Every structure is written in C-alpha cells, then in structure tokens.
C-alpha cells in the first residue's frame, strides 16, 4: 500500500501562513474587530461539529445552536457557582456529548427532513427550558457578568489573551477532527452517508456510528458554547434558538458540507458578510439573504466546490458537444441508409 503523507507541502505552507496571520491579527485590530474574529473562531468550532454530523455522516441536524446553548449555560451556571472554567468546560463537553447520544436515537428511525423536524423540536424544547427554568438559567434575563477564565494564574480577562485561548482551542479541536476523519471512523461516517445499507453489509455498525456522529458533533457545539459565554460575558436564550441552528447549517452548506475547511469559510461568510453589508443600512440583511439564495442555486456544493463545479460544467459541455456530434453522425448515417 502506498504511504500517504499527512499533508501536502503546499497545504502545510498555507496552513502555517494562515496561523501566523491569525497570531498577528490582534495587533492590527480594534476591540470590535478582535471580538468579531474571536466570535468567528467560536462559530468555526461549532460548525466543525455540525459538519461532522451533516457533511460527513449525512444526518440532517437542526438543533446545533441548542447544543451550543447547553454548553454555554453549563459553563455560566457552574462558573457562577464558583467552579473553575477548566472543570466547567469539560463538563459542558460531556453533557453535550450525552445529549447528542440521546438525540441520536430518533436518527436511527427517521431520516432526511423528518430527522430535521425531530431535531428542530428538540431545539425548541431547549430554548423553552432556558427561558422558563428561571431558578437555574435566569430565564429571559439571562446570566450576566460571566468572567473569563485564568490559565495557571494568568488572567485571560483581556480581549487579546482570550482570543489566543480560543485560537489554541480551535486549532487543537481542528486537529483532533482531522485525525478522526482520517481514521477508519471517518471512512465509516462517509460510508454511512453515501449508502447506509451497503455500509451495514460491509460490517459498519450503523447504530453506533449514527449515535457517535451526533454525540461528537454536539460535543463540539458544547465547546463552542463554553467559549461563547465568557466571550460575550452574558447569555440569554435568543442566540441558541432555531434561527441560529439554521445559520449553523447555512455555514456548513455555504462553505462546502463534507469538506474539512467548509465550516471555516462558511462561518466567516455568515458572520462577516452581514458586517460588510451594514453600509446598506435597512437593506443589509435582505441583501445577505438573497446572496445566500443565489449561492445555493449556482453552487449547491458550497464555495469550496467551485473548482469541481467548474470542471463539471466543462465536462458537461464537452459531453453535450460529443452527444450532439453523435446524434448528428447517427442522423447522417440514417440519411445515408435511407
């Protein structure tokens, strides 16, 4: 068997360059820019998880913001009770993982948009819980003044230091996901997406992998939530509602679902495009919506499929011409025999 290197040289060089840029970015940005950049990284983590569930394992999940909420509330509530962030955030991951397992069960019975509806209902349930269980979640008032953590005595309260924490966590969990996708698990997820019946006949345990894809995806949302709460210093039910679940799905799909860097690009577009369009005043969200629709019409595979889409259209044109030539040839031949 041919030995494959982990990354191509070109890939590695670009990745290093991007990381370097990310390290120097805070020096160039003001408070708001840095906040956006940090929020983008948080969204990237969440979208990476959803990409595993939707893009790689092919399960339509519409409760990702809900999972993120569970992570955020877990951290906020525990930190308010005086528990360290470094204990609270693994707890958030574990709780989300367990919830993901539970939500995975309907996925064993229903598929496609039916699964979408089931998960949508679950998201609604979570928001109702956040809003109504005031004794625990603060209800609509939310939880205020969530502190940022310390790291071995070093305060991460400043925007820049917290940014680097989020950046480090994003890189760590990005690498973990890449390794997972390269393992037999990753191939099992893809098999599950492409043809579950065949996957099962070749010995892939569908039940286990379906549940795992949900649980791991949810755990990533949990991490994102755990970072979101101290980033904003405040949480309330709204950011964890259905509209943001749809936004996460959009990030994955627009970036390129089932592609490793899809969520990175998708989150950037979903977050930054509306920012750039703000100069349009009252119209900016409408323009953003239409842009998204247009992208879906012409690039259903996401932005990262641009190259393939172009190749496909070229191939189609070539095939079309070939077909025309064949038909013409057949007609000529027919004419000749007649």
């Amino acid at each position, binding site marked *: 068997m041919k030995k494959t290197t982990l990354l191509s040289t070109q890939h590695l060089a670009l990745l290093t360059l991007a990381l370097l840029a990310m390290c120097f970015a805070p020096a*160039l940005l003001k408070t708001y*820019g840095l906040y*956006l*950049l940090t929020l983008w990284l948080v969204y990237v983590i969440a979208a990476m998880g959803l990409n595993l569930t939707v893009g790689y394992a092919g399960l339509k999940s519409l409760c990702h913001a809900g999972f993120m909420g569970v992570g955020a509330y877990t951290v906020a509530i525990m930190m308010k009770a005086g528990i360290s962030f470094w204990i609270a955030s693994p707890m958030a991951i574990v709780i989300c993982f367990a919830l993901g397992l539970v939500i995975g069960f309907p996925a064993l019975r229903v598929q496609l948009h039916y699964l979408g509806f089931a998960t949508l209902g679950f998201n609604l349930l979570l928001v109702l819980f956040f809003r109504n269980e005031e004794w625990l979640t603060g209800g*609509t*008032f939310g939880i205020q003044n969530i502190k940022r953590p310390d790291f071995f005595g070093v305060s991460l309260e400043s925007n820049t230091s917290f940014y680097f924490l989020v950046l480090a966590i994003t890189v760590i969990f990005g690498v973990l996901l890449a390794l997972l996708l390269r393992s037999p698990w990753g191939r099992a997820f893809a098999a599950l997406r492409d043809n579950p019946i065949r996957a099962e006949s070749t010995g892939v345990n569908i039940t286990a992998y379906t549940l795992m894809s949900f649980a791991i995806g949810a755990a990533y949302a949990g991490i994102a939530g755990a970072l979101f709460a101290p980033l904003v210093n405040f949480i309330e039910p709204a950011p964890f509602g259905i509209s943001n679940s749809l936004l996460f799905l959009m990030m994955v799909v627009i970036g390129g679902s089932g592609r490793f860097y899809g969520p*990175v*690009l998708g989150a950037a577009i979903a977050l930054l495009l509306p920012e750039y369009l703000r100069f349009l005043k009252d119209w900016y969200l409408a323009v953003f919506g239409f842009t998204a629709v247009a992208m879906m019409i012409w690039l259903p595979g996401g932005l990262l499929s641009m190259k393939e889409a172009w190749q496909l259209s070229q191939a189609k044109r070539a095939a079309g011409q070939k077909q025309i030539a064949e038909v013409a040839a057949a007609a000529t031949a027919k004419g000749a025999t007649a």
Partner: protein
Amino acid sequence: MKTKIGRTLGQLTVVAAALVAVSVSAQIKIAQVVELSGGGTAAGSQYRNGAKLAINEINAAGGIMGKKIESIEMDTQSQPAIAKAMTVKAIDEKVTAIFGPVFSGSILVSQTESQKANIPNFTGGEASNVTAQGNPYIFRSSFNQSMGMPKVANYMATDLKAKSVVVAYVNNDFGKGGRDAIVKELGARNIKVAGDISTDPGQVDMSSAVLRIKQANADALFAYLNEEESARLLKELRKQGYDKPMVGETTLMGAKVIELAGTAANGVRGHVGLTADAPAFKDFSAKYEKEFKAKPDHNGIKGYFSAYMLKAAIEKAKSTDGKAIAAAMKNSCFKVKDNPGILLDVCFDDKGDIDRESFLVEVKNGKQEVTAMLPMINKH
C-alpha cells in the same frame, strides 16, 4: 482558501484604519445602537427617526457649542449580544454619547460596555432593573415601568372601580418586569389578580390567550406586551368579543399598535408617559410626519428627547467629556423654557431615572385622546 481569510483580515485592517481617520474631526459624534431588524424594529426605528429629526434640527441651527453632530447607526437585530458588540464598536469610534438600544434586555447588557468607557448612554428601555445596576452613565428617556404602574393601578382602582383584574404579559424581561410591578401594585390596592397569562415573544396566534382572559372573568384586563404582539392580542380580543375594559401602560396604546390593530384598538385606555397626541408634542408630531410619512409614537419622542437632552447637558457642562455630561444630568431638572427641544420639563435622579408629567389616554376612532394629565411623581 486560507488566503481568503488573509484577504478578509486585510480588509478588516483597512476598515479599521479608515475608521481611525474618520474619528479625528471637530464634530460631536454619537452612535445610535438601535433595533433596526428583528422583533424590536417598530420601536427601534421610531427611536432612530426621532433622534435623527432632532439632530438635523440641531445641526441646522448651528450645532452644539458650534460643533455639528455626526450620527452613526448600528443595528442590534434586537439581540442583546449583538447590541453589546455594537456598543463596543461605537466605543472604538470614540463617540461622545450612545443612544439606545430601546429594548430593556439589550440595554441591560450593553450598558456595561458604555459604563467601562465612561460614555453617557441614553435608552428607551423601561424595565426597572435597567437603572438598578449602579451605572452612573445610564439615562432613561421615558419612565421606569415601576413608576408608571402605580398610576395605572390607581386608575383601575378609582376610575374603573375594578375588584379583579386579569393580567396578560409577554414572557421577556420587559413583560415580566411589568407583570411583577403591576401585580404588586394591584395587591397593595386589594384588587384580586384573577388570571396571570404569559405569551411568547413573537407569538402570532393569541386565540388561547384570549380564551383564558375571557375565562378569568375579571372586571378588567391589563395587557403588557411589545408592540406587534399587543396588536395581535387586541385583534383577537375584538374577534372573540371581549367587552371588559382593556387597560395598558404605554405600549398597548402606542401609535404602531393602533396602526396594526386598526379598529380593534378602539376603547383601549391606560397610562402613557409620552403621547404624540398631547398638546406639548403637537409640533414635534407634525414635523415627524412630514419627514418620515408616518405617525410618531412614544419611542419617536424618546429619540427626539434624547438628542435635545444631550445638547442641554453638554451646554450645561460646557464640555463633551462623558464624565462631565453625566454629572450635569444627575439630580438635575431641565426646563422647556430654557431647552425647547426636550418638550416637557424633566428631572433626573441619581440613578438616571426620569420624572415628568404623564397622561391618561383612551383610543377613540383610531386616535389616542388625552383624558387627563398627571403631575410629576415627586416634588422637585
């Protein structure tokens, strides 16, 4: 694709650099951090328009101490987290004052940022806890809901002689705060709360809520919902033939609600801190309607007031420093005869709460009519 991120970052830097360049000028810069999309659009855009009208007038008349006001608008999408981020953005741009957000949930969160930066922050929020955070830079442009509720409760006890009241509210910080305040005031006047009905923010179908209101069989209804939800409730009340007095505080009689609910709003009555139909606001209303082709409501007046209040405070402080402006407003009264733009005499206390005259109104033929004028709560 990583290069894409590089490019995005590059663009961000360019934008940041451009902002630095703009902020160096001899103007007074303010930011309007308001709800221009999402559930608060009705309230936020009225507030924004009101402030815009005032700013244009002030600039046309030569500005504040010879400096023109430059206003930037930022949409919070009616979400507290975005409101907070936008406030940070405004502070990056070195503004003198921040107007908004109007929604209590948003200002509750965003004011921590303006406080840190020592920037005076005017709000249209009415929830009690907005001014209970010990922030010296927060200033209301309308009543604290806990100041309006005693007046409403008095009205129901003495004018309507209600023995029992059913309370319907929207389940957010605004609605819950109002619900808690009115229940307390009703209890103090020995009025029974016959029903306690919560509705969701953005709720469309009010039929079950109205059914429960009817089943409560109380002498009167007190409804406390945001604008769009109020209109839906009124329509459904009319549809199901509810015939008891419908009482509200400020929002239920708002211009936007009357516009949306149509004839279903007729007969609604209650207390308002501000009403475009009061004689003091006639001129303002005419100017607003001419400029924006729509009727102003209390939020429009709040925005207009905020801009003129800032002018009065800067002129009193003789400085555009945030600390000096805030100090000039604390525990101070401002008179219309010195500052015509503020429309009614006002007094601020040490927390940023406001006191001024207010009104009892009733909606007749699609218009608010002032039935009585109530004096300031405290003697100043």
